[in-house]
């Protein structure tokens, strides 16, 4: 089994990693091509802008309505799942979640766990924990399988292997899958993956999956996918463990259709995914297949911190469609790995600080031109640019008691804030402003020729010899 030796690589190294991608024409081409493809597919799904905007509004209302009742809904979900025979577990931290999952594996003396696509399992780095406990954790989504074979991490939340060309994948398969000849025919490559993984679905002791929506009123876990590996993981092995963030909950089944439509159309430009899988219980007496045990792990990992603040709570509306990264000019140029976090791109910038602390993710909120594309396409109308500005403020403000975020003030710099305070003082007093601008125009010869980053590609800034007010005076 392949370990994934790459852990979170927050903040330091972000610039260097970004530059490495920008300097690599092949990677840039991969991302540019893939993002153009996904953007045009999404656009084709929303020909009617009135329909799109009203559906986004509905999506936002549904998410906000459900977040407004989150504690109550979690309890109801737990009650109904338990009544249906599903075992519910709660984890505050990734370590707790891993311990729960590995505990279930050990109880069943499991050797092999097959995994459907789950970003939350990436978030807790389950594969490492399983490896350390001597349990094989095999990714079964084609993209995730490829990325795991290459000892890498997903570079996109929907299309994990988007950074790889088919030739690279062909080499990877030829080198790592026994008995396979080099082929760069995509159908043939998929068939190779299919054959390897079918055998694993047959053998696996545990199937692990994520959850797209958890429905409180019925106690139902919903999964969206195209490949069928999610259905395999949740049906073929004797035990199914699902893991999800505490925010992925809706009160009513009727909340699902609008969100599902927004999700698949925004993510991959499909009017619906091939499969929508609704799981409400383990195998019942008399049924001939399906897991005898179903578990759900509810993970907090910083989400309750975002929840506590009205503005930051909007982060939790996310349905993980990936549209914000597909439309992000920064993501398109630096790709998913440069960020160093599980969730890259705009959603990564606004959710990761809650998971890892602002101190560990300080560079992320500033790596944005605030062009607004992410906020415009987000199917649940998360005001991502506003949240980025808020995170910049939280980071740059002086540390204070009762911060609303872990790592608040991490980017605070005494000199910079003194300069801004002085600037504000000058600009709010007419007398001071006149004096300082007069001084500036007289002493302009003293401005330095090198001005930090500014002059690397620009001419130095220098006050004008005559102030505007002086010029107006002369004209009159």
């Amino acid at each position, binding site marked *: 089994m392949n370990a994934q030796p790459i852990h979170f690589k927050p903040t330091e190294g972000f610039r260097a990693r970004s530059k490495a991608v920008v300097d690599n024409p092949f990677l840039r081409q991969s991302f540019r091509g893939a993002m153009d493809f996904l953007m045009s597919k999404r656009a084709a799904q929303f020909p009617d802008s009135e329909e799109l905007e009203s*559906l986004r509004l509905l999506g936002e*209302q549904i998410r906000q309505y459900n977040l407004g009742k989150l504690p109550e809904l979690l309890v109801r979900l737990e009650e109904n799942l338990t009544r249906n025979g599903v075992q519910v577990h709660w984890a505050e931290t990734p370590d707790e979640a891993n311990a729960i999952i590995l505990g279930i594996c050990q109880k069943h003396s499991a050797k092999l766990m097959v995994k459907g696509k789950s970003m939350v399992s990436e978030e807790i780095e389950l594969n490492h924990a399983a490896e350390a406990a001597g349990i094989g954790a095999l990714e079964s989504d084609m993209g995730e399988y490829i990325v795991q074979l290459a000892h890498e991490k997903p570079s996109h939340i929907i299309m994990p292997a988007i950074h790889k060309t088919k030739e690279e994948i062909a080499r990877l398969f030829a080198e790592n899958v026994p008995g396979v000849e080099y082929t760069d025919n995509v159908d043939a490559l998929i068939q190779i993956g299919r054959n390897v993984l079918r055998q694993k679905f047959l053998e696996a002791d545990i199937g692990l999956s994520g959850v797209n929506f958890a429905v409180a009123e019925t106690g139902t876990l919903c999964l969206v996918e195209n490949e069928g590996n999610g259905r395999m993981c949740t049906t073929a092995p004797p035990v199914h463990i699902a893991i999800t963030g505490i925010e992925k909950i809706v009160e009513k089944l009727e909340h699902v259709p609008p969100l599902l439509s927004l999700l698949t159309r925004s993510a991959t430009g499909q009017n*619906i995914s*091939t*499969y*929508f899988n609704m799981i409400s*219980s383990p195998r019942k007496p008399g049924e001939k297949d399906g897991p005898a045990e179903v578990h759900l792990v509810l993970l907090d990992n910083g989400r309750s911190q975002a929840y506590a603040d009205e503005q930051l709570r909007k982060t939790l509306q996310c349905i993980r469609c990936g549209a914000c990264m597909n439309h992000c000019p920064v993501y398109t140029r630096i790709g998913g790995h440069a960020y160093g976090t599980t969730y890259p791109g705009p959603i990564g910038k606004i959710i990761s600080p809650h998971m890892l602390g602002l101190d560990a993710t300080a560079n992320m909120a500033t790596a944005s031109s605030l062009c607004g594309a992410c906020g415009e396409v987000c199917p649940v109308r998360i005001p991502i640019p506003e949240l980025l500005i808020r995170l910049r403020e939280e980071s740059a403000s002086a540390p204070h008691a009762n911060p609303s975020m872990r790592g608040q003030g991490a980017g605070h710099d005494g000199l910079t804030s003194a300069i801004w305070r002085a600037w504000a003082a000058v600009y709010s007093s007419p007398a001071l402003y006149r004096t300082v601008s007069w001084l500036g125009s007289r002493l302009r010869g003293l401005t330095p020729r090198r001005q930090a980053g500014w002059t690397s590609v620009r001419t130095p800034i220098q006050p004008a010899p005559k102030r505007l007010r002086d010029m107006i005076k002369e004209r009159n």
Partner: protein
Amino acid sequence: MSARDRILAKLKAAPLLPKAEPDVAAWFAGHRPVESNDQKVERFRRCIELAHAEVHAVTPANWLAKLREVLASKQIDRLLVAEGTPHGAAALDTLPVQGVECSTYDMPIEAWKTEMFTATPASLTAARAAIAETGTLILWPDADEPRLMSLVPPVHIVLLDRTRLYNTFFEAMQTEGWKDGLPTNSLLVSGPSKTADIQQTLAYGAHGPKELVVLLLGDEQ
């Protein structure tokens, strides 16, 4: 305090910010057409064919002949059927004498998992209903027609009554009262299994069926 209590305590300490309940029904009423059955059938067919499924119109009199023809065209001589269902029983009565071997799902999967995965080229199930908007089959697997039947065999053939079409997913769940009780597993299926994970190139038959065949059952063709 348990993790559960700590998480709930943190969430409860936050202001709730209650929001008005969204009116999902009103959105669908205003944005999705209610079509005649023929229109729904046409829309369903167009969408699911776009997703690479094969659709054949059949009648109660000729569906078994069509089924045999489909199998022959794919050179399949073995079909998994559900003997406890009327369509499964009919297939079991007719096909073996015509040279198609029929196996049945008569034991828990543990007893024949390897055979299911390695020696079951095709299966026949019924759909509970379908959705016109997205070209989607609704399957409710049960003890007679278990979950893996529509997933593991490389060719999945589905019998769909053409009067069982809904305009939307929302209409289906509301009309059938799903909120009052869902089965162990319910599914929406909108084509054969597929992936675009390698260079955005679409390939069918990722993990589930490579081919999906819909027999659209009606009184006339």
